[in-house]
């Protein structure tokens, strides 16, 4: 089932605009991620799709049907909540079939579907336990099972993994994604975690204060961010944003370093450099002292003082025998740089796709 959001606006009673003209189309079978900092409006969009909150303007279509003014139950959606939303007084089975019961589905059908989803989420042996006796991961699987059993083709997920520990989160990420692809579900997934957005989404919408910053495939957002907010949001460590000047065929950085760079534009720009878009070399044009170094085992994160507003973040895939205070030199890979103009729009980009492999 596809979902269309057309010119959605939401204003609170106190005049605060939480959604400003949201437009998008979520295709059938797509894993669509809404990501943003807290207060960006991502949960508000989800609640609007579910029908929990009325919107002030715009229309919501599910499968071509205008559902803007329909109550939640007539939208045929299922939802997975951050705090699981399990009823503590009901067993796992009773929780899962709660919705079927409410919809007066035939008892035998209830049992049949129950057994099916219990197997899907590997909870068959826990079916008579109460939620209090389950771990966080198991609780979220019960919540997932309750969404699956409803046969709804769209499942809304509101930060379902944020209460789990890191290891379990990575595991559930894979499990949910695999399940979604296997069953061909349309999932609208809200998260504040860029890793979840990058790793799970077919399509990602980045929101900022009720406005869409960019919509696209995860790698497009990473490689060709529409503005510095998007560039800064994805990637860890965060992208380096340096001030600079374009002059003819030269690009001058704020710290005085100049490199050859052909671009039709001239004037002040902001240059985005991913921490991994560098090459360590003793002859490097950029040099400075290490202010911070983090050995990761599979690589090293380094911060270097290069005379810009803040230390330059580097990420290399080697273990380095360096410590704070050491001098280091490196070059920026010009074909992986991003240029943003004075209006904060992306204007220049290295030929990343040609670089790949």
């Amino acid at each position, binding site marked *: 089932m596809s979902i269309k959001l057309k010119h959605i606006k939401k204003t609170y009673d106190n005049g605060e605009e939480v959604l400003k003209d949201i437009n998008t189309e979520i295709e059938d079978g797509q894993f669509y991620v809404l990501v943003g900092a807290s207060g960006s409006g991502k949960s508000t969009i989800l609640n609007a799709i*579910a029908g929990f909150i009325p919107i002030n303007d715009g229309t919501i279509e599910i499968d071509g049907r205008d559902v803007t003014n329909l109550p939640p139950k007539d939208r045929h959606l299922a939802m997975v909540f951050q705090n699981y939303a399990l009823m503590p*007084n009901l067993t796992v089975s009773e929780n899962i079939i709660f919705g079927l019961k409410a919809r007066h589905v035939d008892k035998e059908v209830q049992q049949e579907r129950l057994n099916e989803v219990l197997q899907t989420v590997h909870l068959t042996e826990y079916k008579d336990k109460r939620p209090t006796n389950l771990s966080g991961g198991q609780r979220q699987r019960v919540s997932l099972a309750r969404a699956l059993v409803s046969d709804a083709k769209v499942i809304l997920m509101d930060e379902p993994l944020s209460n789990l520990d890191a290891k379990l989160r990575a595991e559930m990420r894979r499990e949910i994604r695999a399940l979604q692809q296997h069953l061909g579900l349309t999932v609208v997934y809200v998260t504040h975690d860029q890793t979840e957005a990058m790793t799970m989404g077919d399509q990602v919408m980045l929101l900022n204060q009720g406005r869409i910053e960019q919509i696209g495939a995860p790698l497009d957002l990473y490689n060709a961010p529409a503005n510095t907010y998007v560039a800064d949001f994805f990637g860890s460590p965060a992208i380096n944003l340096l001030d600079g000047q374009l002059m003819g065929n030269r690009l001058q950085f704020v710290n005085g370093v100049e490199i050859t760079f052909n671009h039709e534009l001239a004037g002040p720009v902001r240059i985005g450099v991913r921490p991994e878009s560098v090459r360590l070399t003793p002859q490097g044009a950029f040099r400075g002292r290490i202010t911070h170094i983090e050995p990761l085992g599979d690589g090293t994160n380094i911060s270097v003082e290069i005379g810009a507003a803040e230390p330059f973040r580097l990420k290399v895939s080697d273990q380095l025998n360096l410590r704070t205070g050491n001098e280091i030199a490196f070059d920026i890979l010009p074909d992986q740089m991003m240029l943003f103009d004075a209006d904060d729009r992306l204007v220049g980009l290295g030929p990343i796709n040609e670089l790949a492999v």
Partner: protein
Amino acid sequence: MQKKQNLLALVLLLPSIVVLGMFVFYPMIKTFWLITQLTDLMGNPIKFVGFKNFINLFHSDSFMTSITVTMIFVIATSIFTVLCAYFLAILASKKMRGMGLFRTIFSATMGISVTVASILWLFMFNPQIGLFSKVLAALHLPDVNWLSDPVWALVAIIGTTVWMNIGFAFLILLGAVQAIPTDLYQVADLNGASKWLRLRKITLPATEPTLFFVMVVTLINAFQTFGQVDILTAGGPDYHTNLLVYSIYQDAFVNHTIGRASAESVVLTVIIMIFTFIQFYLNKRKAAKYAG
């Protein structure tokens, strides 16, 4: 060192021991002694009578009436108070403009003294100028002697007490209802669960411990009812609103039969104990059901 600590413990406990001793333990022990005594008009014991006070009590028609109406009163009051307060709490928990006003009104009876409230109700029950009689007359219904008819007098006292106790019960229950996570109701919304199913599977289970607490407090409160009876009916007509606490007061300070009053106090204590035990037993069984 050990000795010093024990001394300190004693010093720290002293204020509580003195206060409790003076107002709880001493009267309690004296009551148990007084039930075996016949007393003069000043309440001084004059003769040992053994269990005669108890035997007389259980042969007394007025006391049996007292016990019966107390039971009816306590059970009816508790049930209606908790039901009404729960209903209002669920209503008032809805997020709506102006709901704060209703929450204030519903809990306002907490701030009205028993005497003031009783006098207000006394006016409303007045057969000539009272609100209730006027309403009945306007509806062309037969007149009711609210406070002098044996059945209606009890109903009047129950109604007054329910009204007075609602404020507290409402406030506690409102807190419990508002603490229920909204996502549970959103699950219900998505599936179009009926109001009845929501109440049975979400609201009731989540508020059960609080309901139990409010039930216990309301019950014990009801047993201690005094002011309403004193002002509205003074125990009449013919002992039909003579609740135990009021009966104890009458026997002790009006009839000067301290021995009999002491015996009644012991009976009241035993009854409250039995009720409390039953409630805690039921609660324990519930708790056992959820573990596992």
